[in-house]
């Protein structure tokens, strides 16, 4: 199953968020990779691993939106990775316009994160 081999990638420019995501998901038994912007993330996504990506919207270098566009343009990438967008309330509309698998609204509690993550991780 594709899900079995999936890893989690957290893409956020804010170290606080990255650390927090790591802390939370470690307790749930996941190992995560992090990227500070869309560009770093793309390097990982182009590798062999399949990822569930927690993607922040606003980042320097390459934003979430730009990364989405790149993934969308490549069916191979799109098929292998699932994208969960982390978006604030005021950006939901824009987030919804992107071809992503789910949207996690910031700020969130751990239960919400787990709920949204489990379908993808089995």
């Amino acid at each position: 199953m594709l899900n079995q081999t999936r890893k989690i990638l957290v893409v956020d420019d804010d170290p606080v968020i990255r650390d927090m995501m790591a802390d939370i998901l470690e307790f749930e038994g996941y190992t995560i990779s992090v990227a500070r912007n869309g560009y770093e993330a793309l390097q990982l996504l182009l590798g062999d691993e399949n990822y569930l990506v927690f993607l922040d919207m606003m980042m320097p270098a390459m934003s979430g939106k730009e990364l989405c566009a790149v993934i969308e343009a490549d069916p191979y990438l799109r098929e292998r990775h699932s994208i969960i967008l982390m978006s604030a309330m005021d950006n939901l509309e824009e987030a919804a316009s992107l071809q992503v698998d789910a949207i996690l609204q910031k700020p969130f509690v751990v239960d919400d994160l787990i709920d949204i993550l489990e379908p993808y991780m089995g």
Partner: protein
Amino acid sequence: MSTATWGEPEPLTAVEKYPLSLLKKLLQEMVRQFGATGGCIALYDESVGLMVIRLHMRLRSAVPTLVGNSTTSDSVSFQRRVTVDLANPSSSTLGRMKHISQPLSQPLETDPIIPVEKSVLFPVGATYSYGQDLIGYTWRKNEPLIIRHEDYLVSFQPVDQISFLQDPIPAWYLCAPIQIPELAFDALNRKQPFKVLGIVLLYQMSSAIAFQQKHRVEAQQFSERIALYILNDQLRHLHRRTKDYMKGFQQISTAFPTAVKLSNLVEDVYQFVTNVVDVSSMLLTFYDRDTKKIYDVFAIDNGKRNDFLLEQPVVDSPESRQVWWQVTQEEKRTLLLTLDSQEPEKYSKFEELLKGTWGDQSRAETFLLLPMKMFTRVVGSLCLTSSRTDAYSPEEILILETMVQIITVSIENAKLYDQSRQSLLKAKQREESLALMYSALQVISSVLHVSELLHKFVETVANLVQAEMCTFFQLSSGEQELVAQAIYDTTGQWRDANHSTNKDEKHDDLIEMIHLPFKGSILEHLVENETFFYLDSSMVEELAQASGEGGAIFLRETHIQKMLMIPVRYQMEIVGILAIHTPHSNRTFRPEELGALLAICGQAASAIRNAQLFEQIREAYAELQRMDKLKDEFIVTASHELRTPLSAISGYSSLLKRQSGRITPQQILRFATKIGSATQQLSDLVSNMTEAAKMGALDKKLELQLGPVQLLAASEMASTMLSINIEQKITLQIAADIWLQCDAMRLRQVITNLLDNAAKYSPPDGRIIVTGSATTLSQLPEDQVDYTLIAEGFDPPVALVRVCDEGEGISHEDQQKIFEKFVRAPRSLTTPIRGSGLGLYICRRYIEAMGGRLWLEQSIPGEGSVFSFYLPCIDPPIEKRIDVEPDSQNIGS
């Protein structure tokens, strides 16, 4: 003459044309004088060309059928009145006639002569053509005639024999034509449509008393008398009609000034004169005492009219018309000359009057000059000539004099009317220019764009007074100079002077190059004291010498000879100066032009003021909009900023809750620290925002808690707090003995903000270095120091703090903006930089409030930026003096 000229109906009835009362009187007298039984008078009726019986009278004793009827009593009373009249010999020429024939023995009262309404022979109203019946026969014969009744019947067979049965039958007839005496005829010089005015016929009932031959002569004389009476009566009517005519003039003169023009009036005068007297030529002359000139305004030379005179009168001086002057202005008399072509020297001294505008009148027979008197003043003359000898009788002259008197008033009125028409015209012109001005003002007032308004203003002014150049100058802010803002230039002189090839935008640029000196120049004084003034060429040259290049070119190359300058004031404040001139022209403006200019300047001043205010408001509004946009951006960014610590708090707290069973105390501590840190970040953000809002909106003085603060300690605290969130290494190079007098919390906030900024714009591996050094104020960069202190001899110790990063740098155009509220170095939202955008604004405010300055020392794109600030330095407090060896620490995540 026709009274129809005045549009009135013919006032005279037939009865008035043939005055019955007069005729009755004459016929009665004639019947008695000739011892006749009765008689009748037939008068020629022009309209039918026949003799018409107008009156038939007879002794009452011979009118049996009519005795006792009302006509009789009328006749009696009538007769009495007549009797009284006849008794007065002086009332007529009767006295002279009496010796011709003795009155008959029959007393007047015993057998009065009464009008006969109905008679078989010669009834009233009967008409006779030329040669018809006895009357027509006498008309044709044109001489008195005596005929017997039998002969009459045989010759003319007037009526049925039977008809005579009802009426007494005359035995004899005496018939005479009523003729105008030869003398009177000539005097009147009338064209005679008929020689015989009428026929008078007397008859005698008694065949015993026949008319005698001597009666023929007497009848001739008597009929002439009747003719004279009739004529006299006609003249009387003529006079009355003249009066009517004059009444018309008076009417017309009171109808002024709406209808009558001088040209119409003189035309009427001519018509009038030709109807009264014989006129070959006519000349109407005026003297205007204002101009002291003599004007010939109307002239007819032997029927030929000079049509140009009314438009272009012949003007002469009194010196060249000495005779005219003598007669009209000194003698003030009517001059009647009978010219004798045989003796030209007799009138040679009046030659001047006879020649001139109306041609040569020296061959005329009669000359008449009528002075036009206005009270005692003679305002002109009416001269007439006739080809007839003695053409003007005293009566006619009287009529003409009266007429002239009346028309003088009319003409004076006409002149007045012309004058008032002129002034009306002027008023109209004024009104038009006012209308022009008001529409111009409206245009000006409706424009709110200052530059457009000023261009409109100068254009309008130039057009209003037909000046070729009009320039508006504005006072520079220090009132040192006048700077041209708009030029209207129909000549192209200014453009040419600048050799400008492409017109408008370049032209506008060039306009602002025109600077004229103001403060200390002749202009300053004049502007202060004058409502308007002129600059002559020497003043212009003086100004040009004191002007810069643009001003000198303007002053010299636009060929100013005389330039009108109008200070444009709004209330007491000078808005600018309007300069109006036409190259090479020495024009002085007329009062009405100046008035209009001043009015328009006054109006323009407030319009300019309004436009300037509007522009300010517009700028303020644009600023407000910019601020609004910044605020919007700020809110977007700030909400993002708020959400990050909130996400951390939310995430960690929910993690603590979810994993409470399996979580270790170390983990709890770590998560709690994370929560605390996020909370601190959040609270910093919120306080930043409220501080900014407070400073921006209310511009409150900050509440500071000043005290000694160790710079190193404050920097360490800031650095430690921030290091949790940033990846870059922060290096502090600060001596421990630097103490500042400031608010510790604010200082920490400033340093945190500067470090945070440095981190945000730097790559993760970039270095951030904070240095601190003690120095004095005079050692700092010049542009950041308030030199008033130094000037007063103070050079206080200060600490200079610099925060250097290796970030992307700030572009030159953004360097000035970054200290404004809400401004962040511009990055789009797709590549966002976190930050409230309040940091530098707040930082600068804090530092300044604490007596220092904060500035961007340098920023090189791609290499990094250096932000610096200084604050007053103090000696370290003794109990806290600690020697700290290392002056650098590395703190990083």
